[in-house]
């Protein structure tokens, strides 16, 4: 593992997580230690079952480790209440999912605005923020359209805009290109890198898509729940 010189936004120390599968206990993550700093573009890669998504869930406070600790900007997540973790996810994290996970009854604009509203901002502010982000991802003209009328690529753009709604420090993306065709996947990845650079946001991907790995500035490889390698890439594939 390589450590970063910058102050870590997130740190996982000796983190382990197992799941029960019938009678069997299946270890998903074993004694993982990892730090994530600001403005990183990290790909966590590995074969299926290597623990990529589990690690992402632990870092994103969607799940809690059985052992070890996850710290967010120095705070031990184990000491946080459920509400405090919700608030941290709302204010400091963004999430992009493989299946987009937009709220079907909300328009594109409302989906992006939802986290802003959750943070207590008024309608004028969340509308302005949503439109600004939709413009940034090239979907301003689709603001009033419901997700079921958008293409896969458009939905993922809306999901990216939603993830950035509350100006997070880190966006977690779990296989964000898995449901997209090759061209759209490239566009989405370039958009994410561009947004990350422009908005000084770290992106952490769980992926086995080589296109993601090719664009990453840091690649963490997992094997059987352990970090096999943690490599910084000096010249990743440039944005288009």
């Amino acid at each position, binding site marked *: 593992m390589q450590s970063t010189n910058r102050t870590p936004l997130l740190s996982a120390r000796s983190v382990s997580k197992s799941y029960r599968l019938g009678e069997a206990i299946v270890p998903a993550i074993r004694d993982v230690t990892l730090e994530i700093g600001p403005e990183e573009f990290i790909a966590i890669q590995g074969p299926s079952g290597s623990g990529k998504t589990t690690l992402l869930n632990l870092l994103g406070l*969607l799940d809690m480790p059985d052992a070890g600790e996850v710290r967010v900007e120095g705070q031990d997540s184990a000491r946080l209440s459920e*509400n405090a973790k*919700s608030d941290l*996810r709302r*204010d400091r994290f*963004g999430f992009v*999912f493989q299946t987009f996970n937009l*709220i079907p009854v909300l328009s594109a604009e409302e989906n992006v605005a*939802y986290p802003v509203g959750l943070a207590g901002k008024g309608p004028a502010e969340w509308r302005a923020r949503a439109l600004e982000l939709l413009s940034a991802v090239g979907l301003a003209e689709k603001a009033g359209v419901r997700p079921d009328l958008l293409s896969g690529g458009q939905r993922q753009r809306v999901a990216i805009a939603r993830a950035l709604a509350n100006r997070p420090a880190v966006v977690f993306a779990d296989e964000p290109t898995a449901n997209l065709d090759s061209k759209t996947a490239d566009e989405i990845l370039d958009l994410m890198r561009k947004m990350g650079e422009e908005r000084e946001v770290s992106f952490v991907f769980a992926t086995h898509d080589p296109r993601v790995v090719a664009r990453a500035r840091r690649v963490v490889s997992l094997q059987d729940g352990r970090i096999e390698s943690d490599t910084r890439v000096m010249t990743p594939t440039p944005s288009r």
Partner: protein
Amino acid sequence: MSSWSLAWRNLVRQKRRTLLMGSVVAFGFAAFALAGGFIAQSFEGLKEGTIRSIGHLQIVDRRAVTRSEESTLEFGLPNAGRARSIAAGDPAVAAVLPRIEFVGLATNGAKSVPYLGLGVDPQPEATATLARELVVGGRYLSSADGEEVVLGTGLASALGVKTGDRITLMATTRDGSLNAVDGVVSGLVDVRIKELNDRYLAAGIGLVSRLLETSETVSKLVVFLRKGSDENRVAKRLEQSLTAAGFPIAIRHWEELAVFYSQVKLLYIGIFGFVGAVLVVIVILSAAIVMTMAVTERTREIGTLRAIGTRPAGILKMFLAEGAVLALAGCLAGALVALVVRAILNASGIILPPPPGATHGMPINVKFYPLAYVAGISAMVGTMLVASWFPARRASRISIVEALTHV
């Protein structure tokens, strides 16, 4: 985006299910509103009928409250004329009716039948009570001192007499001797309670006083109040003024005397309470199933909402809001249904079976009773919130990771 707006959109999204559940709520609400209106109308009619029969208040000798008379007018009110004047002087009093209650035998010369007698002052009695409306043959009494008597239809039938026939009334006087007077049947009445029809006899207070060999003594004074008067205040005033005038009296309220009214009221409350409870259970079970299905179908969505920062309470609120919105929409539809059904029922002229002990049915009449609508809304919203609570709580506690991978 408020929980209410999100709730409404999710309900619209599941049109068929919302329509089905909304119909259950609308039916439940309409049942509440209609039953409430019917009960209110029944109670009001029964109350009015009871008061027009026994008055708002009754002035009696104190001993009559706790003890039963062993001889005729043992606990009568002496100097009834003076007491009546004092009571009638109260500004809230509309009428004071003297009544003598007694028992005896009526005979046509060949056959004797026991009766429950009532001595009355016919003029005010006819004005203040339903006495004249109960006449089904002949006419009501015209003077306090005449020989006229009115008989219940059952008693007349038992005696084999009709209007214009003469009968002899026998009764025990105050000192225990037997006395008799002649009377002429002026009218037949149907007092709407079969057992009473078989025994009912009313006569002018003068004729009854002669029969009982008494003067100026009555069993009670029946007091009718002007509309809007406060019964308790008037009762207090009358008690004070009559006690100050030397009358050892007690005032009895109509509710403590109207045993039939109280029994019917309890019966209705029991029946409709049970039906209401069954309705609530049906709505709770239906709503719980619907909300559980909604939570199951939207598990992944719940996971997403939790992941992007919605607190558990936010999820709980979202599903409770759905229950409340569904309840309110259902109540609105139910109110429209209730109003239409009410109009149809009231125009139908359907005659309901007579209540317990009565001889006549009443045309169905469902009142618009705002309290029933308020109670219906409260019951339906409360029921839906209870039914939504457990699925909503389960939704708020779902593991985010499990929810996100839910298929």
